[in-house]
């Protein structure tokens, strides 16, 4: 202690910082956005990556195969009925002589389209409805949420069947039927998140800066629930595909000669005890593999956006 009091401070006691110390606060890593961070984590999950690759191949095949194949999905050929897989027909033909490969791929178009577009519609409706309800709060929120509760109380299947009866059996009415109730989960999730986020200081800061309500809602609140929203969407897609396949299988979905995977499975069902029982394998295989890969992707995405959950 005594030495400290008597110590003289002279200039030669000081030396300039070397550059390493000077730049000690320099951040060397490239700035990474939230999405690229998530993609980084997603890539590490091999199963999810396989699912994604399979899904991409499926989409490409669904687009390309019906275009380049010499057969069409509704072109009948009574000279080659119920063929087993062969060179001209890799998956054989059905009872009207239609090429099954083309029909399965054509079905993939319809199934995937229904899956992705209804998920997209649910995304838009759910985020806007839930975000609005959560942000405004109070009585508005109460009324909006009771409407949702009432919708949720009606059995989903009943609603879909009713809509099919009114609008006919086509892709649009199936999509309306699926979307009518599927957005509810999304809306509730977004509402809950927005309600907790709107009290955060960054939302208050935006308010004090004079930002409009819609700006705060979409630029500050919704963007911060993006992780959960994306996870929710990846789960909506397989459930929509499954609902469609189920409806078509029980005969109230897409009507002939158009085909989805469910319709194809339904048509092949009657041949299961005939000379060509493997026809049913193809659509079921397509459904199973697609569902599996979508679920793997969903798992991977939810881990990628929420690393703490693991």
């Amino acid at each position, binding site marked *: 202690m005594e030495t400290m009091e008597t110590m003289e401070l002279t200039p030669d006691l000081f030396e300039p910082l070397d550059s390493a110390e000077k730049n000690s606060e320099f*951040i060397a*890593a490239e*700035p*990474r*956005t*939230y999405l690229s961070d998530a993609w980084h984590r997603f890539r590490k999950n091999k199963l999810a990556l396989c699912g994604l690759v399979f899904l991409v191949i499926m989409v490409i095949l669904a687009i390309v195969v019906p275009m380049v194949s010499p057969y069409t999905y509704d072109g009948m050929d009574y000279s080659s009925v119920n063929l087993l897989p062969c060179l001209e027909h890799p998956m054989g033909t059905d009872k009207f002589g239609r090429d099954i490969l083309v029909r399965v791929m054509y079905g993939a178009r319809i199934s995937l389209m229904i899956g992705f577009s209804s998920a997209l519609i649910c995304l838009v409706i759910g985020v806007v409805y839930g975000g609005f309800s959560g942000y405004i709060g109070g009585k508005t929120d109460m009324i909006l949420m009771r409407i949702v509760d009432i919708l949720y109380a009606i059995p989903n299947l009943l609603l879909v069947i009713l809509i099919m009866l009114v609008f006919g059996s086509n892709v649009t009415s199936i999509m309306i039927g699926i979307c009518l109730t599927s957005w509810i989960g999304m809306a509730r999730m977004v509402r809950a998140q927005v309600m907790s986020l709107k009290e*955060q*200081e*960054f939302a*208050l*800061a*935006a*308010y*004090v*800066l*004079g*930002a*409009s309500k819609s*700006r705060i809602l979409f*630029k*500050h609140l919704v*963007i*911060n629930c*993006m992780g959960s929203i994306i996870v929710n969407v990846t789960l909506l897609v397989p459930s929509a595909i499954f609902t469609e396949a189920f409806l078509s299988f029980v005969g109230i979905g897409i009507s002939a000669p158009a085909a989805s995977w469910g319709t194809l499975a339904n048509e092949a069902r009657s041949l299961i005890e005939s000379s060509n029982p493997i026809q049913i394998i193809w659509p079921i295989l397509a459904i199973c593999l697609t569902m599996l890969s979508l679920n793997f992707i969903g798992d991977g995405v939810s881990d990628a956006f929420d690393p703490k959950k693991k």
Partner: protein
Amino acid sequence: MEETPILKVEGLKTYFPVGGGLFGKKQVVKAVNDVSFEVMEHETFGLVGESGCGKSTLGRTLVKIYEPTEGKIEFMGKDITKLSGSEMQDFRRNVQMIFQDPYASLNPRMTVGEIIREPMEIHNIGTPKERDEKVASLLETVGLKPDHVRRYPHEFSGGQRQRISIARTLALDPKFIVCDEPISALDVSIQAQIINLLERIQRERGISYLFIAHDLGAVKHISNRIGAMYLGSLVEIGSSDDLYHHPLHPYTQALLASIPIPDPKRMRERKKEEINGEIPSPLDIPSGCPFRTRCPYATERCAQEKPQLRQVGNSKVACHLYDK
């Protein structure tokens, strides 16, 4: 120093209804209960008090996050409790706020550049190029590097984030900033840096501050005048020297006695001016003087009559002890 008031608050009350619902009894939290004070131009007005005494609510009412229940807030001669849409946007440009938690006050999905540019986008100030230049100059003002614009908030430390948040407030060139405990979430060494930064900005731009804190040392350092708040009411207002060296109100005396002295000997010798008990619930404020339940000098009169702020020497104090 003391010229025209930039902000004048009269009889301000902010109440929050709680409970209610279907069966519950409706109750009211009186977070800010009849507060009047003035902030002069270029002045820093400090606000101290225990947690839960309504300091933050008062600050948030002043920037209109909360609607006042009653009373008048005059900013540059205009009553801001009733403003039209465009007048409101004007008010927003002039009055800004710095928040307590630098980890929560920046949107984690926006880059630093986007965060500082946002106020100018909202108020349609300048061309995109001018905005970029302003962002760069603001970053320099607060002591960050211009190449930080592409970074995200999570890449910065608490002190750096508070600097970003200060840069965002300055983007609109406000005349008055409410600093809601801007340093209490930071390390002590960083606190001094932020205080110095705020002081330099005030010198250069002539901004007035309302500085809310429970760190008495920091408040004394930065403020010209200080108000002590207890349970929603201002109990004493005085210049920072008067309030520190000659506190009048028993609560202010007790508050000052609670400051730790970095010397155990002197700490032990210090006269103990203890106050007992907990701060009462703002749901059920004592009648008369709010401090009477814990005040060592409380008399019968304190329970019956709420003391008003009155001039005693150089300060204003709300206490019956100083009545003749």
